């Protein structure tokens, strides 16, 4: 076993993580009804301090982390974002700012670039300003985003436009692609939202039809060819219409970790939805020890724990049985095969739900917000 302070870097790096999602805060001016944050948002009073994050990034760099996503909530809500970014840059980590783009001034962005920010990922909810603002639950957001995109390019940074896809923008994919090209984006992410947490609560209002998703796939294929060398496009279908599950996180505890605003270290950002898992906090233990020894990371590492149909499946080492959170949500046990897989006995239920709900009249959005009851602090 390797403990903090050991110098056996070769052993460590064989299993060291490469990516770190740093959820700096759960505060956000937007209220997207498919927010990937947990239903129980962590309050600002419990957030890690500047010093905590600085130490975390130092430990992360030593541990082998190569890229970090400074995210949230909205990371620019944190007044100390500059100091946190600097700690990541000093640790040699490639830095992505994942932002809604509605709070940043040009001056502040310029400061971040000077510190060493490498890349900006900007969320764009829709190409229609009114619909974009309705989805985000924030008036005037759309025009601020367009402005930010312009600044990003002026300052010479690469830009990713991230448009989460769902029923309310699924028919606008071609326009979204053209919009991203016009903004000068190097990358476009048009991942269909996955139905966990907030999105799960809004599923009946958000899920598109199978035909719409398949048409999106054709549109992306055509655009990729046409935009070769100009803009790359990442496209993800909703699990409900998949045949094979996605290799979630590249395998649980294999290359990626998330740190929540209060310092909980999670194998994925949705892992807290799995009841019974216990998460350790960066305030209590060195990041390296948590990565190597935390029960939450070790519980679903590798593929030995997987029962059939995964156990005897030839794709076991390719998709690692899919997503633990979805397996838990649908089967009650996180070690089961992700129902997104056609070999899962729950798969037909998943498809049936999607096909039925995608044809229902949409309801009002349940917007993402802090609950009135303060959370009990640990």
């Amino acid at each position: 076993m390797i403990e903090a302070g050991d110098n056996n870097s070769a052993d460590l790096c064989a299993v060291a993580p490469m990516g770190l999602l740093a959820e700096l805060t759960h505060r956000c001016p937007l209220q997207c009804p498919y927010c990937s944050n947990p239903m129980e948002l962590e309050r600002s009073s419990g957030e890690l301090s500047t010093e905590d994050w600085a130490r975390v990034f130092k430990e992360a760099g030593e541990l082998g982390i190569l890229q970090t996503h400074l995210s949230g909530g909205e990371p620019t809500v944190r007044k100390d974002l500059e100091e946190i970014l600097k700690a990541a840059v000093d640790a040699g980590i490639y830095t992505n700012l994942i932002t809604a783009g509605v709070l940043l001034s040009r001056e502040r962005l310029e400061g971040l670039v000077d510190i060493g920010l490498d890349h900006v990922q900007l969320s764009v909810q829709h190409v229609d300003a009114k619909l974009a603002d309705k989805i985000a639950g924030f008036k005037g957001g759309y025009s601020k985003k367009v402005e930010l995109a312009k600044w990003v390019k002026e300052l010479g940074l690469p830009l990713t436009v991230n448009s989460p896809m769902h029923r309310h923008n699924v028919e606008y994919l071609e326009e979204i692609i053209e919009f991203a090209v016009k903004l000068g984006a190097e990358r476009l992410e048009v991942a269909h939202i996955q139905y966990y947490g907030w999105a799960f609560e809004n599923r009946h209002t958000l899920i598109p039809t199978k035909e719409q998703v398949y048409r999106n796939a054709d549109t992306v294929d055509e655009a990729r060819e046409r935009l070769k060398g100009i803009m790359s496009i990442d496209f993800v279908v909703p699990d409900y219409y998949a045949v094979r599950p996605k290799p979630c996180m590249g395998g649980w505890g294999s290359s990626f970790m998330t740190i929540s605003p209060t310092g909980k270290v999670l194998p994925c950002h949705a892992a807290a939805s799995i009841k019974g898992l216990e998460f350790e906090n960066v305030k209590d233990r060195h990041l390296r020890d948590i990565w190597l020894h935390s029960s939450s990371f070790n519980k679903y590492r590798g593929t030995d724990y997987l029962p059939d149909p995964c156990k005897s499946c030839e794709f076991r080492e390719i998709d690692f049985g899919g997503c633990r959170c979805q397996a838990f949500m649908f089967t009650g046990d996180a070690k089961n095969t992700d129902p997104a897989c056609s070999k899962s006995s729950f798969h037909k239920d998943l498809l049936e739900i999607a096909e039925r709900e995608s044809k229902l009249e949409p309801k009002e959005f349940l917007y993402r917000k802090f609950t009135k009851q303060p959370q009990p602090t640990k």
Partner: protein
Amino acid sequence: MTKTRLIVETDTTPALPRFVKLRHDKGRDRWIMLAPERILTPDPIAVEVLNLCDGEKSVGEISNHMAEIYNAPIDVIEKDIKAMLQDLADKGFLIS
């Protein structure tokens, strides 16, 4: 702004854009290319080529240099280098 696809030719003078970082990953003892949401692991020969992509040397010059070092036919080397650089350009990781 209209961006166009970079086609890598013999007289192209390739360079990595500022946001693509070629660096040694000490812990894993290998070279990596860091780009938005991507980590590439070029092989040692690709790393040699990439280190020559300074925006001044042409693909022809880089190919000559590599052909000399490895004592290999220039046409084969240049074809390989062009293919590798075109692939990078199509990913958006190469400028000229």
